[in-house]
């Protein structure tokens, strides 16, 4: 942060706030990141369970999402932009890191919706290329990274947005489904170690590959549950 008097605020902050806001009209409100199924089977029943669930989600899916968003934002920002085939490669890297087909589908759906929304808010060559190269929808963290670059964010800010949104949707879903005290849940969100899952990414082949089998299983069960309010 540039805190010195007379210095402009850190560039990209406004873009980060807009992207991380749950009001961003990109379909995120209907995804629970496995929380709906976890509530249904009793794995989340109160704030303590939820805190453990979110901590695990951040340390695995959140960490991978942050790394992918960092890479995508950096790639989109290179002077020539990432080569067209590079987007398919990075998307394949994301695919390889999400074991559950249900989670892959949810990630691509959210990515497609985000790209469509971001193209209208922050039109950019990289967003247009990504939409063309991965027409069924790039994975959400990649879409987020490219949208973040278009919004003027740094790769670090893109990674923060990915880490943050990897847990906020699940937290909100638990509030809606279980009637948890929203202030208690925000305290839980405030205590999560976001910084710990963000690291510079320079080599796509060295991206982290943390997995959470429980999240994979919850996502698969959720898709087969008859009564559900959330897409994932």
């Amino acid at each position, binding site marked *: 942060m540039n805190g010195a008097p007379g210095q402009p605020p850190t560039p990209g902050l406004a873009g980060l706030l807009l992207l991380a806001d749950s*009001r*961003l*009209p*990109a*379909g*995120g*409100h*209907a*995804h*629970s990141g496995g929380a709906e199924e976890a509530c249904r089977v009793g794995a989340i029943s109160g704030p303590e369970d939820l805190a453990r669930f979110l901590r695990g989600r951040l340390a695995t899916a959140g960490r991978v999402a942050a790394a992918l968003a960092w890479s995508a934002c950096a790639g989109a920002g290179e002077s020539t932009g990432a080569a067209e085939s590079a987007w398919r490669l990075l998307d394949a890297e994301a695919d390889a890191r999400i074991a559950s087909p249900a989670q892959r589908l949810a990630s691509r*759906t959210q990515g*497609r*919706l985000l790209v*469509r*929304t971001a*193209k*209208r808010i922050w039109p950019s060559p990289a967003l247009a290329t990504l*939409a*063309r190269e991965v*027409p*069924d*929808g790039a994975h959400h963290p990649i879409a987020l990274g490219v949208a973040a670059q278009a919004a003027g964010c740094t790769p670090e800010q893109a990674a923060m947005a990915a880490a943050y949104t990897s847990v906020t949707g699940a937290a909100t*879903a638990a509030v*809606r*489904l279980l009637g948890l005290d929203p202030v208690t849940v925000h305290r839980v969100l405030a205590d999560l170690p976001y910084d710990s899952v963000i690291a510079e990414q320079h080599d796509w082949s060295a991206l982290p590959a943390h997995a959470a089998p429980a999240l994979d299983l919850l996502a698969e069960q959720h898709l087969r549950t*008859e*009564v*559900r*309010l*959330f*897409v994932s």
Partner: protein
Amino acid sequence: MSANHDDHHDAPDGHGRALRLGIGGPVGSGKTALTAALCRSLGPSLRLGVVTNDIYTTEDADFLRRAGVIDPERIMAVQTGCCPHTAIRDDIAANIDAVETLEERFGPLDLVIVESGGDNLTATFSRGLADRQIFVLDVSGGDKVPRKGGPGVTSADLLVVNKTDLAPMVGADLTVMSRDAAAVREGKPVLFTSIREDKGAHSVAEWVSGVVESWRHQHSHSHLS
């Protein structure tokens, strides 16, 4: 599930695409019955698609599929994460995606109906999603509902008051409803229906046909090139 990625779809402009008709209203007022009735009446003359926003399950979509009024492939269900009004007003991304997917798969279409999940009187469709909207009430909610207003009642392009067959049983005065609706709607149309008795909701279908016809004139495909 791929949507159309051509840039012209990102514009709010309506050229070369179907009219998008939102159908909203409280739980149980007859939105799904009206959607089925419109498919029944308009299916023979218009190319249709339907998007449902079920609250819990795919019940509404399943009802329409079972009713056999439209090719089941042309019905898409959207989940709304406990917030049906968010999906039609504040964050319309999933609904737009579904509408565009239908247009890409089956287009060109004349009419895509987006049926909202049952909500309260404050729910209304975003103009970014619906070109025209119908708000459906029923008489059993009480004859005071039109007077209470709310954006759906006051501003929908058409207000439908359904289940008129129940009026004597619930003590609802249709004259009161009609007078109050006219007062809060400043001349915009109101139709009374009993879809149970008129399976094609013919008066509403006629209104929709007229709207589709004028949409076609204003946004003809020839403007695209």
